[in-house]
């Protein structure tokens, strides 16, 4: 047994320690602090709810109007390209079959309320086709000049 293991009796004086009374204001303070924290937690929860609603609204706003804007931009671009192609084509030139298929697909997509992404892709395809047609007109013109 080492020195620290040797039992040493606690002095009796320890058991004569005074018992101090609770401060009278302590319980009201505890209740007030508890109520304050609860209010803060509720406010934080409510604030979180409001913030989440605003965030969702923002996401919806950005996701919503942004996509139709993109489609509208493509529609406008399509009109410009179509005008350019028409200007360079023979007056009696038929509407190219590939463009007719894309237009039919677009009409079907609008009719069944398709997703914006699908409609955007179809407009993109239409514009790509028009660019190819315009490019082939330019090539033909170059060949004629040569």
């Amino acid at each position: 047994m080492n020195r620290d293991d040797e039992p040493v009796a606690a002095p009796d004086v320890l058991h004569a320690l005074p018992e101090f009374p609770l401060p009278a204001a302590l319980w009201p303070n505890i209740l007030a602090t508890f109520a304050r924290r609860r209010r803060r937690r509720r406010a934080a929860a409510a604030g979180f709810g409001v913030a989440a609603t605003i965030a969702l609204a923002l996401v919806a706003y950005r996701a919503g109007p942004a996509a139709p804007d993109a489609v509208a931009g493509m529609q406008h671009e399509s009109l410009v390209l179509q005008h350019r192609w028409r200007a360079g084509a023979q007056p009696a030139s038929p509407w190219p079959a590939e463009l007719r298929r894309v237009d039919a697909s677009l009409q079907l997509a609008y009719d069944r309320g398709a997703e914006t992404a699908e409609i955007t892709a179809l407009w993109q395809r239409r514009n790509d086709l028009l660019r190819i047609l315009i490019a082939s007109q330019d090539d033909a013109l170059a060949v004629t000049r040569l």
Partner: protein
Amino acid sequence: MAPIARPDTRMPAPSERPERTGFGVPLDGAILERARRGDTTAFAAIYSLYGRACYNLALRMLAEPAAAEDVVQDVFIKLMEGLRGFRGDAPFGAWLKRMAANAAVDRLRARRAFDGEDFDESTGAFAVDDAPADARVDAWTLLMRLSPRARAVLVLHELEGYTHRELGEMFGQSESFSKSVLHRTLQRLGRAEPDASADTGS
């Protein structure tokens, strides 16, 4: 020596203190159930049963009335925020005592009261051994002269009944740490024990 913080004292007669601390008082199951449902009057009843024991435990460990009040507040707010931690496999008072002791130890740790402290030197700094032989040192003053670590170990082991193993866990130390600190503290207190007539105030 810096003045020792001492709250207003009222020394109850021994008949008013049927037990060493109030944590041994059993809690009525109906009060516990009401408290589980968030009934504030049930928490008030729990406070009237155990609040004083919590306060005195914290005050003895921390030696500052304001810090002891903070401990009681922390413990009871945790209690009111949810009794989920109490599984009922130990007496409620013992569970509450552990909460109060842990809260007090956390405060001592936050004050870095345990860091880099040499127990022998810090105890010596309070000059218990150097006190005049006829000094009328009462029990409270004797306790307050101990270092925070020595005081905490002494209070938790000798007054609250924690084992050295439990104290080792509580302080994040080995069991022998607690034994060693207590042994030296008791040796010093034994040499400094006052005249019994001087410390009761009676």
